[in-house]
């Protein structure tokens, strides 16, 4: 049944929806061409419908605005504001995720449908865009639309506007009490153990995993019996290729590194536009930890597990790179 026929059957109703089409299969990472050309909106009877749809949108937008201005929304203990994240942050990032980076996601079935999980990824790309894209990927692709709760460096929470946005988007300071509290509450927690060593590394070192810190993320997962899901992200390395790091300037500004990329700082604000690389995200099978709870303080177990996660990610990165011969390909 075509859209016209439906419209004729249900005249003047904005609530009716076409039955959902079969999920679109990506062909070579592109969105498929629609089989049926979208019908031209026919003159008089359809005009009322479109207006009604717009009416609804306006009403929805106004209701959202009113709720925000009246403060009638809910925020959790960490400052996460799901309504704001879904209505504002997510749609904005999704443009970058889908149209700019053409992101493809594999192995989403490895992310648990409910209950806690610790998603551990490789970090790169000068600013932590990979963390944001991972959040969008989970919200977009996961059958349960799960929110990823990121653990961020304290630098993020020291900066005025950044800290406000980060908390509203569901991030919190990377420390064991917060990580464990989130996991006990059954949340999906995202962590990048490489930290600034990962995002601040030079282009020449791309896709080489850096040291994984003290493995604090592993002990937090062990203490709560949370499965660890390693994730490999390919594409973030090419968005701002760091050719050099001006260390004295970084020290002067109090930041961990000062990047020099082909476009930054030469082109000024234009240099902040990320290069449109092709992104692949692969979730690896979860590593269960429920049977290791009593070893949370055993440095050997923690270190071995951290190493296992690190090697899984590194191997997956190599596989993904073979799948993507051209970093700026389609």
């Amino acid at each position, binding site marked *: 049944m075509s859209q016209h026929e439906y419209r004729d059957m249900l005249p*003047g109703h904005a609530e009716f929806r076409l039955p959902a089409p079969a999920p679109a299969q990506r062909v070579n990472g592109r969105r498929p061409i629609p089989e049926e050309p979208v019908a031209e909106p026919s003159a008089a009877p359809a005009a009322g419908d479109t207006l009604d749809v717009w*009416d609804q949108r306006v009403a929805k937008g106004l209701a959202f605005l009113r709720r925000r201005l009246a*403060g009638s929304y809910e925020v959790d*203990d960490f*400052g996460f504001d799901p309504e704001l994240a879904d209505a504002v942050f997510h749609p904005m990032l999704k443009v970058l995720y889908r149209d700019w980076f053409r992101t493809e996601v594999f192995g989403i079935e490895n992310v648990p449908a409910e209950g806690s999980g610790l998603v551990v990824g490789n970090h790169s790309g000068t600013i932590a865009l990979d963390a944001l894209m991972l959040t969008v990927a989970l919200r977009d692709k996961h059958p349960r639309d799960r929110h990823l709760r990121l653990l961020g460096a304290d630098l993020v929470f020291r900066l005025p506007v950044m800290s*406000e946005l980060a908390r509203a988007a569901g991030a*919190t*300071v990377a420390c064991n009490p*917060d990580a464990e509290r989130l996991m006990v509450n059954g949340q999906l927690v995202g962590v990048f153990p490489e930290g600034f060593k990962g995002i601040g590394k030079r282009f020449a070192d791309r896709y080489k995993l850096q040291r994984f810190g003290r493995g604090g993320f592993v002990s937090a997962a062990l203490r709560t019996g949370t499965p660890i899901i390693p994730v490999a992200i390919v594409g973030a390395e090419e968005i701002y290729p760091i050719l050099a790091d001006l260390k004295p300037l970084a020290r002067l500004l109090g930041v961990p590194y000062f990047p020099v990329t082909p476009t930054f700082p030469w082109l000024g604000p234009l240099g902040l536009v990320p290069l449109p690389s092709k992104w692949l995200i692969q979730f690896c099978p979860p590593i269960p930890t429920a049977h290791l709870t009593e070893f949370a303080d055993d440095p050997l177990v923690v270190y071995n597990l951290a190493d296992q996660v690190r090697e899984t990610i590194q191997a997956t990165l190599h596989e993904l790179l073979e799948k993507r011969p051209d970093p700026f390909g389609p």
Partner: protein
Amino acid sequence: MVTSPPSVVVVTGVSRYLGARVAARLAADSRIDRVVGLDPHDPPAGLLGLLDGVERIQADARAATEAIADLGAEAVVHMAVTSVPDPQHGGRAAMKEQNVIGTMQVLAAAQGSARLRKIVVRSSTAAYGASFRDPAVFTEDTEPRAVPRGPFARDILDIEGYVRGFRRRRPEVSATVLRFAPMISSSAETSLTRYFAQPLVPTVLGRDARLQFVHVEDALEILHRSVIEDHPGTFNVAGDGVLMLAQAVRRAGRIALPLPESALSTGAALLRNLGVEQIGLDQIDLFVHGRVVDTTRLIREFGFTPRTTAAAFEEFIQAHAAGSTLTADRLAAAERTILDGIRRVRAAAEVSAGPPADAQATAGRSRT
């Protein structure tokens, strides 16, 4: 654990709102024979009515020492802890004198009193300090990362330090330390309630602090139970849930005025020096970092759940509706007006342009 209630209770700081309310509540409890209020100052006229059943001794902390021993007090409720300097009673110097030296003397007296079984000390969640690396939620075991810069927070750390010393020296006395979140109610007047009652509320630019409040009635219930029952230990007392500062300002129907932190500090210092309002570093730190505590231990031990932060704040809003501009009702009315306006404009356009049948259908829809 429940033991027999103490027969003689000494309450310090009865010249202030909370102290007077606690004393009145304990005096109304028939299980307690005698409630004695200690305070160097005379309570204001508004609180005198509350203190009818309370014997008052107007004495400073030094004289209070003898009083506690002479009266044979079985429980001491130490409420003489001020969060904001009072310019009429000597400002910050007097505040420190009362908080730190006063607590030392009360604890010294309590230590020497043979009949004492119980001591309850008012503390504050300011004990957790304020730092960018703090965990999002504080449990009672969280240590502050650094010595806080706010004078009240530093006093609180000193006070809790003395209580730790007291616990070591008199382990048989049950010592309860209650860390209260900022208190709020329909009638209580604090610098925080005055802050939210302004029509234009200054906030920190680029920061949205997570706040928690506790309702005064719930705070009193917890204080009452800790005198009647035995609950040794340190407990966070706060309403569950979180309100962001901007959200609280909006719910109160006020307009937030975000200022850079430095401008806010300077402005607050200026107001302090002029004696207009006492917004100190403690409050600014709270508005930059926010403070959320875990109340699991409180709920488990006392078997009592304080009303949520949102509910406590709602009650405060109801009582302070005057002076609000952007209330939820007005916003809803504005929303309806805009939607009606759109509908009317569209109906008019369709009447002039579209076929009549369609216009009627639209009119029918807008009536429903």
